[in-house]
């Protein structure tokens, strides 16, 4: 990366609850996002992907690790000193219903963002709200309506307009299209692509849907039980996965093509509880190539080529198979 990263996360860890059995939601996660770049966080439940998003925005406090935004460590800052972060990083939520206060009009929902940072007032405020609504493809006249008068897709647009109001550099999009129907999902994906290009937004795009992530993101990080399994460019991760979990995840996602090969290789068993993650490699209990070695040490991320990294003792691409498998 030539440019200074917009966001750099180092050794980020979050435990919920108290010892002896805390929920290990996020464990030693490191990544960075360059200005204007979209990084996808993919994983199943318990992978910690949403927790990472909230940690980055400091909506919850990290247990350890650092979060640098534009070079400044914000991981321990008190709320009072987070004004700049709140201006520069925003969130778009999964649930288009619960993410808008049902008692406020659209005008006030978006206006609140402007007020909080004293960005516009009076008639300039109204103008700006109208402008934001039009940016996300809603008529300005809708500003005096309440959220319940909109469909799911329209609400999601309002949520995006609210996030854009402070002109952020980074958007954390937490499953922004998962609750939407396919046809509406496509509308919102395209809108986010447009906005990204128009405003040069960087994004942390959190999703469980590999297809959506591959479409939206420049790079992808695959998470399992709070740890990064694999990280690299979208193309590399999706078409040349190096980690057995990534491979399994890709194989398990049904393709919308009756001629595509049916799902054959399948992971057995359940995702372990984040309260009692397996020792060593957290994936080993379901891994088709796990060996005794895997229980001993947590595998470090290692480089495949370029900035494509994966955390496995065995490189499936280079036939580094364990003797037993």
């Amino acid at each position: 990366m030539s440019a200074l990263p917009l966001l750099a996360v180092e050794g980020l860890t979050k435990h919920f609850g108290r010892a002896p059995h805390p929920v290990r939601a996020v464990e030693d996660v490191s990544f960075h996002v360059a200005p204007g770049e979209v990084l996808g966080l993919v994983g199943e439940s318990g992978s910690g992907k949403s927790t990472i998003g909230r940690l980055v925005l400091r909506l919850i406090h990290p247990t350890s690790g650092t979060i640098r935004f534009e070079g400044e460590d914000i991981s321990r800052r008190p709320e009072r000193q987070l004004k700049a972060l709140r201006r520069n990083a925003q969130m778009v939520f999964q649930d288009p219903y619960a993410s808008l206060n049902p008692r406020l009009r659209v005008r006030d929902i978006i206006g609140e963002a402007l007020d909080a940072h004293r960005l516009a007032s009076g008639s300039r405020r109204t103008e700006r709200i109208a402008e934001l609504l039009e940016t996300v493809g809603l008529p300005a006249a809708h500003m005096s309506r309440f959220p319940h008068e909109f469909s799911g897709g329209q609400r999601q647009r309002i949520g995006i307009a609210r996030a854009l109001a402070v002109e952020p550099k980074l958007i954390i999009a937490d499953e922004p299209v998962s609750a939407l129907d396919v046809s509406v999902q496509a509308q919102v994906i395209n809108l986010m692509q447009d906005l990204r290009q128009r405003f040069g937004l960087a994004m942390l795009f959190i999703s469980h849907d590999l297809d959506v992530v591959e479409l939206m993101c420049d790079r992808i990080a695959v998470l399992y039980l709070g740890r990064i399994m694999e990280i690299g460019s979208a193309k590399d991760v999706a078409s040349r996965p190096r980690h057995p979990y990534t491979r399994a995840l890709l194989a398990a996602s049904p393709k919308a093509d009756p001629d595509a090969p049916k799902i054959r290789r399948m992971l057995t068993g359940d995702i372990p509880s984040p309260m009692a993650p397996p020792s060593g490699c957290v994936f080993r209990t379901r891994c088709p190539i796990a060996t005794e070695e895997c229980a001993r040490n947590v595998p470090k991320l290692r480089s495949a080529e370029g900035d494509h990294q994966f955390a496995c003792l065995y490189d499936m691409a280079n036939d580094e198979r364990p003797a037993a498998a």
Partner: protein
Amino acid sequence: MSMNTPSLLSIQDLEIRFRTEDGEIAPVRGVTLSVAPGETLALVGESGSGKSVTSLSVMGLLPRPAGRVSGGKILFRQRSGRTVDLAALPLSDLRGLRGAEIAMVFQEPMTSLNPVLTVGEQIAESVRLHMGLGHASALKRAEEMLDLVEIPHARRRVHEYPHQMSGGMRQRVMIALAMSCNPSLLIADEPTTALDVTIQAQILALIQRLQREIGMGVLFITHNLGVVAEIADRVTVMYAGQVVETGSVGEIFRTPRHPYTNALLNCLPARARRGEDGRRVVQSIPGSIGKIGDGCAFAPRCVHATDPCGVGTVLLETEMDRSVRCLRWREIPA
């Protein structure tokens, strides 16, 4: 296939009405579909399409007294060979079929099992009712069923409560419960939607295996086109309470006839195409399901709609084993 084999389930021109605060609505207004023995029919649609309501009406589980079947037939061929109209069957007779010949698996494994009864008791209850087994042998049967759905340590887990199991395990229990009396028709209402991808794959494989072994017909309700491609023999697509197209899974994905089916497939991120500026863009369908008026329900969002689409009733045209509800399907390039 459905032409030659007599159907197991045949829904004809079904209409369902609900009383609401703002008057009566008809979330289902013209559903025609059929499931042959041993076949999987996927019923596909987005939210508000009426697919779940349709499935509930087969079981007679519409919320009462608000909802009712107001038109059409739900013909079901019983094991005895007799064909009955489930929509007109007295509730007491319908109860004899529920769980015995028609079974259902629901979307939410976390909440679909009774939290205060062990999973064994819940399966055994059904077995005792329909198969007339005693307490001990019913519990034994429950254990066998857990084994059948690949739950490890079935002997021990039969005495566990739902909250002691993961979502995937609970969905297996739901399937075991549904299969416990060897139904000839299984209705699966979004059975994998609440599950993670890797668990979804397991459950889909399980349902397919059981279907092969037991030979039941499956009505599989889903919004996920990937799952449809994975599991279905034939597909029925619904939009705004109506069936708009039916065909074999290959036909639907390769040569969709209804503009909605076509547009829906093109909304998939996997079908994104590179635009002029080099960006990959997915197609989308403008707007959302709005008020349903005269004419074709999809017309307001359809790029091919012309004036005639907005008036009158559009009928479901059936030709061989494909049907489509569109005035212009012959003219529209696939």
